[in-house]
């Protein structure tokens, strides 16, 4: 069974605008640690959003907050280890550290070879 992890983490770099994502040390660290777990691949991007714990500003609005969005498709058997790693990377226990969602993936297709399922990931 294939699953997709979609994870939103609080960025450690405050000035995201002036830092290219390719130079983002946090993104590099995430990539390194996930590669050690032999995940088949990862997409990382920057996103904005809000959650239940977002704080209201002086105008009474809830401003959108910056997040790193990580997406990984992998086999179910690797889920727990990757989730634990992401929790660790996020600073587990801190309010607003982020959220992890897990969803089913019906199929995966590698376009170049037309491999499908697990074969398409590796």
């Amino acid at each position, binding site marked *: 069974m294939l699953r997709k992890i979609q994870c939103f983490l609080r960025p450690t770099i405050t000035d995201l605008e002036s830092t290219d994502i390719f130079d983002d040390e946090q993104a590099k660290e995430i990539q390194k640690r996930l590669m050690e777990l032999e995940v088949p691949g990862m997409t990382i991007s920057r996103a904005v959003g809000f959650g239940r714990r977002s704080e209201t500003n002086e105008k009474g609005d809830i401003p959108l907050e910056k997040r790193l969005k990580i997406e990984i498709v992998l086999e*179910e058997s690797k889920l727990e280890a990757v989730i634990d790693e992401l929790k660790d990377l996020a600073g587990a226990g801190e309010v607003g550290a982020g959220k992890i969602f897990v969803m089913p993936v019906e199929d995966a297709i590698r376009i170049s070879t037309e491999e499908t399922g697990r074969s398409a990931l590796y």
Partner: protein
Amino acid sequence: MAEHDANPWKIACQQLDKVADYMELDQSMVNMVKYPKRILQVYCPIKMDDGSVNTYTGYRVQHSMVRGPGKGGIRFHPDVTEDEVKALSMWMTWKNCVMDLPFGGAKGGIICDPKKMSESELERLTRRYTSEINLIIGPNVDIPAPDVNTDPQIMAWIFDTYSMNRGHTEHGVVTGKPVSLGGSKGRLKATSRGCMFTIMSALKKFEKTISNQEIAIQGFGNAGSYCAELLEGQGASITAVSDSQGGIYNANGLDVETLFRVKEETGTVVEYEDADRISNDELLTLDCDILIPAALENQITTDNADDIRADIIAEAANGPTSPDADQILENRDVFVIPDILCNAGGVTVSYFEWVQALQATFWSEREVNLKLRDLMDKAFDRVYERSQEHNISMRLAAYMVAVDRLSEAIDLRGLYP
């Protein structure tokens, strides 16, 4: 009568009468939900290894089969009585109703001391007992499971005996089988995992998180030990545990992996270093956030209920709180997650095993755990809502939910003929 010697059937009836009074249930309905549908007593003559013949008495009680087949464990113990099995079968009915599983309630037992029997004597006893109750069990009739002193191997013998008598393999006749014979993944830790989910739900209601909650666990058997492991994994601090030899306490938390190793190597948790020795009674009244009685019945009584300092009691054991002690806890606003909800994870994964058997399929452990969480969360929320609506304890609310579901099913099915 002393609380410790209380007849379990009388306690079960007392609990039902309390909820029936509160619900103003019609007396004819009270009788229909109270008395067992069927009680079978069997005598099992067994040839012992020394050539002598011993005859053992066994029971299978089917308390209710209104909402589905009977479901409940079989225990091997010298203290088994008909009244105990009747009470346990009624509690199975309520547990299955609270979880909204399509089962009635049943229980079985054999008066024997398995610790004084060889493996081959146990096998012969299990097979003879299964043949004797063969007429009233089956995948669509009544599905036994493990209980005190019965394990996956004994379930495998029940499964084999029943299948041989039928002439074909029947995976759905019993649950708690070894995984290689159709047992469900996740069954081993199911009771503890279910208990953990109810604790997490309770904490959420109090706007707390599990992180750093101090937890004392009485009992380090299947339920207690895995509760410790799972809750530590969620960030809780396990400050005290115990087994039949006594208990240990460290305000800074115990290391659960080490506890497992010490228990494995020495047979008891009290040999754990870096902790103070305490008695089982002292454990119950420790200053902690959550108390998990995961050992025997009637541990929390009128003798100690006033001294309990935990905010939440999660009843991983069956019947750890006497009815009189329960009233004291209720008056003191201690939040009790009642046994029929708190430890229902075991029967819920048994239900999953039965479903997998009927469909001839198998699920991954993750799938089992997620489905378990879903059902535990729903059951907890239903009971909690009821307790809030009526301003009553979680136990009374759980019984109300259960009795409501059973009496509705009786009404809908009608009386035959």
